[in-house]
């Protein structure tokens, strides 16, 4: 019960991941993204070593398809995993085993993969894709968010007892190996995607201030002063 998208921005080469799920604190299980290397995200039944192992192989230069084969050979429960892989050039590969509960599936697009399980149906994947492609010139983080919203609005997750809300959600974008550009999370909330939009939009207001005070602290105003300028603007 998760729907996700991994993608590469062709103009900036940034890599990003968006995820929303009924499970809580899903953002804490997304370590498989590294700039200049690629993304691997395992979901449904997660084996936590998978994503970092895949990154190591991608870093060596192995193709997403070969990495997927190695993951399969390494895991007796491969059929229970849902895995998407994208390399630094945007080549993609995905696997939805027979184990994840229905409806489960994925769509591989040009430089991105949309995938999910325990969904209302294939229309959720279509909604993710449509949301992602709606504004191709937007920053990657907003395209990922639009993708998650598209998946939610197309019905999202449906379990044994009917619709399941998104309780956690996260967006990661990287353009540098050592720290993320965007790392916004909601870990436990009744409407996690709506809350994630609130967090992301607020963060974007602070983004440049936070960055610049790191680069040139001698020129930075205090955060209290910065917040005051915000309320003045409003």
């Amino acid at each position: 019960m998760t729907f996700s998208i991994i993608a590469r921005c062709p103009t900036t080469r940034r890599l990003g991941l968006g995820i929303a799920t009924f499970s809580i604190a899903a953002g804490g299980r997304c370590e498989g993204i590294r700039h200049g290397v690629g993304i691997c995200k395992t979901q449904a039944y997660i084996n936590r070593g998978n994503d970092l192992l895949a990154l190591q192989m991608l870093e060596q230069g192995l193709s997403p398809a070969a990495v997927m084969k190695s993951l399969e050979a390494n895991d007796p429960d491969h059929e229970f995993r849902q895995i998407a892989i994208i390399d630094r050039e945007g080549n993609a590969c995905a696997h939805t085993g027979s184990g994840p509960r229905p409806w489960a599936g994925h769509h591989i697009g040009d430089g991105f993969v949309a995938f999910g399980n325990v969904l209302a149906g294939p229309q959720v994947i279509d909604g993710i894709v449509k949301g992602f492609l709606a504004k191709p010139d937007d920053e990657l983080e907003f395209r990922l968010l639009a993708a998650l919203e598209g998946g939610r609005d197309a019905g999202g997750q449906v379990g044994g007892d009917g619709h399941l809300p998104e309780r956690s959600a996260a967006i990661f974008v990287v353009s540098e190996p050592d720290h993320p550009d965007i790392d916004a999370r909601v870990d436990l909330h009744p409407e996690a995607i709506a809350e994630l939009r609130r967090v992301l939009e607020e963060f974007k207001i602070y983004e440049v201030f936070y960055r610049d005070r790191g680069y040139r602290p001698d020129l930075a105003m205090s955060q209290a002063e910065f917040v005051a300028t915000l309320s003045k603007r409003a």
Partner: protein
Amino acid sequence: MTFTLLARCPKTGQVGIGIATYSICVGLYCNGLRGNVGATMSQAFVNQGNNPLALRLLAQGYTPQRVLDDLKANDPNHEFRQIAVIDRLGRVAASTGTKNRGWAGHQVGEGYVAMGNVLAGEKTVTAMAKAYEAASSLSFERRLLAAIEAGRDAGGQSGVDGHLTERSAALMVYGDYDHAEIDLRVDLHDKAVEELRRAFEEYDQYRGYYKERSKNPKDAIPQYQFVAELQKRQQEAAQ
């Protein structure tokens, strides 16, 4: 006797170098580029150990200034070197040692360094920087090329008996991979910068073909056929 534009592309994070010099085979020394790590170049009296060492320090996460300090501390002949270092964030440090010959100096800009020694004067360096900035709408490799052409046109190098021609030149760009995205050289030629431009314009028309051929060999046409079609198109365009 060299002039160089070393840079990081602010849009894509690619790192690259454009370089031209009276020395021959200068491309041999341009081993200071690595995607997601940084760019560095040691010239004048080249210490060939500097570039690999600087890349390792950049990979550790050291700032360009700290890398430069380490190179200096590691080299008793540091004052003979001219060095530029750019990290993966585009931060820059450069040094022109006091024992460089002729007019020697560097200009640091946002994400780039223009530098040279045994030059006609400061104008060679400022012209490179200006051309690189002015070409911001072009692709990264074209910006680098424009910079060294501007350096040449501003007078380039000047030795004991006056102007020195460019006998070798190189243009290199690295992205996310271990291999170069572009790596073009002229090793020995009377007008190496002109020859580099010629090689680039020619090669540029092949890039898509080479890439596609690698990805999808089954459907690739033979290269001589590609060349014949290319020449036909060029003739038609000329008419």
